[in-house]
């Protein structure tokens, strides 16, 4: 096992009475891109802010590059890149001004040429003030600022929120470019499952502050599946199978969403329940995620009614 660069142990955060992050345990090894997914308000931003020492945990701890998050030293911070939620930069500064500001905190490691090339590639005039940039352009500046110091660990809080496909692709390219260098690690949160699927090696799924899954993307994609069983006469009332997430009955069919149940177990259950046949339906990552994080027995918001 390679070195762990980001580690949380029972990381918990309450805001007053409401629980934002509940006993988060993570170990992210050096050299991977880790996608951090969860629905709105699942606690992603809180978790990231806890990791960066911007919030104080109610319980538990986290460590970045071996240093406790609540006491990150300047030397450690210098090795970490952080793209804040919404790319909030100083509005009155020009791109060049911001470049100068940021560069001062990364002496030796700041790559002037890389930054300039990136800004030119994005076709942004360096003299332009941040407040005169569009959301997408501000995001591009924020990306260039985070990548130019060549950080060992890059943490991005929903960097592609509300951005168009082209700029989102640039963020993905940036992550891939960084990871190609030796020993770089990226953790990014996102709502866009397609982006996560493209670049992530591992995914973290949290829901209502609780860690639901932390595994390789491939494992997740293999684990969550939908199976449709067809019965000759009636669907059994009791469904007793390992890893059952959701269960839906449609006339003589039974649709189960399962997690971590292997095909043999499914076949065995089909036999014991007396199903005529069963098909395993392939699911996209997005469907898997929606099924995986949906509360059990959730009713459909809109229902097609036959007249």
């Amino acid at each position, binding site marked *: 096992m390679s070195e762990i660069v980001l580690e949380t142990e029972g990381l918990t955060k309450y805001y007053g009475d409401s629980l934002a992050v509940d006993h988060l345990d993570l170990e992210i090894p050096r050299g991977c891109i880790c996608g951090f997914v969860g629905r709105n308000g699942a606690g992603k931003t809180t978790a990231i802010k806890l990791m960066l020492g911007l919030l104080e945990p109610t319980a538990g701890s986290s460590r970045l590059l071996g240093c406790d998050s609540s006491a990150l030293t300047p030397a450690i911070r210098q090795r970490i890149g952080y793209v804040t939620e919404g790319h909030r930069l100083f509005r009155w500064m020009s791109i060049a001004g911001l470049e100068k500001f940021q560069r001062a905190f990364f002496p030796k490691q700041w790559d002037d040429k890389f930054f300039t090339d990136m800004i030119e590639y994005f076709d942004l005039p360096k003299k332009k003030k941040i407040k005169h940039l569009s959301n997408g352009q501000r995001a591009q500046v924020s990306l260039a600022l985070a990548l130019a110091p060549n950080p060992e660990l890059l943490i991005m809080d929903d960097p592609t929120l509300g951005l168009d496909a082209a700029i989102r692709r640039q963020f993905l390219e940036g992550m*891939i470019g960084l990871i190609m260098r030796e020993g770089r690690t990226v953790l990014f949160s996102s709502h866009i499952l397609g982006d996560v*699927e*493209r670049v992530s090696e591992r995914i973290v799924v949290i829901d209502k502050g609780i860690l639901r899954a932390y595994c390789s993307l491939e494992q997740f994609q293999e684990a969550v599946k939908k199976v449709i069983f067809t019965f000759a006469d009636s669907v059994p009332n009791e469904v007793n199978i390992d890893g059952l997430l959701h269960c839906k009955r449609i006339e003589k069919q039974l649709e189960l969403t399962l997690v971590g149940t292997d095909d043999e177990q499914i076949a065995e259950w089909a036999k014991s329940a007396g199903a005529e046949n069963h098909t395993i339906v*392939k699911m996209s*990552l997005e469907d898997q995620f929606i099924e995986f994080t949906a509360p059990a027995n959730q009713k459909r918001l809109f229902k097609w009614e036959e007249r």
Partner: protein
Amino acid sequence: MPLWIQILPGSDEPIYVQVTEQISEAIARGQLASGDKLPAVRKLASELVINPNTVARAYSRLEQAGLVTTKTGSGTFVSDPKMRRSDAADINMLAERMDTLITRGLNLGMGEQDLIRLFESRLTKFSKKSNKRKEEK
């Protein structure tokens, strides 16, 4: 040697499967001839904007299937068709897949001859001669 791979995130096939299948198809169609070199893992990853590990996984699947061989230090090459192993299980799986297709065809009301003609017409797409002709044009 052009290699055109399209990634569709959000499809029900994982990305490494998409890469594996598209390269397999390119080999089957003759777009990649035996001895051709596949792009380096990192190069392909940055071109497709996908994780390098995904490309590596696809390459190792291709290698397991005997379609490519990796020579340490020089890269991954399309292997000689004569050298490819195909065991009974593989052929069996192929036969099963064909069964599903034949069932569909028959359900659509196609006759035996129709199916054979259809099979042949699809096969020409993979014939190396026709691909070469296309390139000349």
